[in-house]
């Protein structure tokens, strides 16, 4: 089991394209996206969901710890400008055919 970083990003669905581009630029091997996430944050409640197209997306990325710095550098400007949050946790990868670390 290798050490990896688990990065969670919650942001408006309209930012999704920009964020995924930034992730691809960082060189992460994969990510998972859940849509239609509601919530509360600095920019208020997002109860209208897809009605006003202001629903959130929830992105999880597992990556090699060495990529973390670049990833944060790529993502932070987007979140600072358009809103959204980002958190990092330590995790371990179960060895499988595919490995991020």
């Amino acid at each position, binding site marked *: 089991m290798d050490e990896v970083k688990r990065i969670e990003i919650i942001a408006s669905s309209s930012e999704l394209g920009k964020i995924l581009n930034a992730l691809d630029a960082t060189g992460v091997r994969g990510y998972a996206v859940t849509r239609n996430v509601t919530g509360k944050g600095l920019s208020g409640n997002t109860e209208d969901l*897809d009605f*006003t197209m202001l629903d959130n997306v929830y992105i999880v990325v597992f990556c090699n710890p060495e990529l973390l710095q670049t990833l944060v550098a790529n993502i932070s400007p987007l979140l600072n*400008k*358009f809103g959204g949050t980002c958190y990092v946790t330590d995790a371990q990868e179960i060895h499988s055919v595919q490995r991020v670390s």
Partner: protein
Amino acid sequence: MDVSLIISNILNPPILFFFLGMTAVFVKSDLEIPAPIPKLFSLYLLFAIGFKGGVELVKSGISQDVGLTLLAAILMACFVPVYTFFILKIKLGNYDAAAIAATYGSISAVTFITASAFLTELDIAFDGFMVAALALMESPAIIVGLILVNLFGASRDQDFKWSEVFREAFLNSSVFLLVGSLLIGVATGEHGWEVLEPFTQGLFYGVLTFFLLDMGLVAARRIKDLQKTGIFLIGFAILIPIVNAGLGLGIAKFLDMSPGNALLFAVLCASASYIAVPAAMRMTVPEANPSLYVSTALAVTFPFNIIVGIPLYLAGIELLWS
């Protein structure tokens, strides 16, 4: 007379279901239309209204009248955000003022659809090309809003791309589907209409009713945001539509539009966008507070227009046109 029109408007299923939705929130019922059903309904309504407009456009042809109406529509869509921007600046910062101004320069397709259903009820004719006016009025305000921000806003960071702004303005899903359906309606004409009729026509009123139920829920949930919004914006959200409808009626009279077209034109001027523009503003003017521009358009202007506005503007037409 005014009041009797209001009452006959209110006693329609769509409006009553809008009230039912609002009531559900006020009495804390757990009624909700789960995502993505509202999105399906709004796609359907754009598809149906666009397609029908296209079919009728090809029947009526494009005359000089049509050209003038569409030109007037674009001009109003550019003028409204400019003049409202300066009114809004009295109380608000540049970013919020520009975003709200753009919202009111653009239009609400559902308000237009509700007005056209109301006209159909009263057997007042209107033309298919008004849907083209609807389509043309959606985007310009987004561009104008952004120009205002760049003229008056503090020096913004320069990683801002006009190509993206144009995409947000002209290729956002509402505009794209509406224009696309309109063009397909033009291309397939009467023949396409017949095969699609049970879908685009038969269900139309029912889907509108169901959708307004959800609009009632969403609008009522937004009402608590109005406390933060303050009395200035609430007043703005009621008075500006009336002013814009008045301007619209003046232009319509000047261009000698039919009463039906005049009502739709006034409604386009009076309505404010709560989907396309907010989505665009969120990306292009992220400094503005979304709850300001979404809540005024959704919780004040939209209900005002569909309940009081539409019959009020029609009463104005009866006065001016007779």
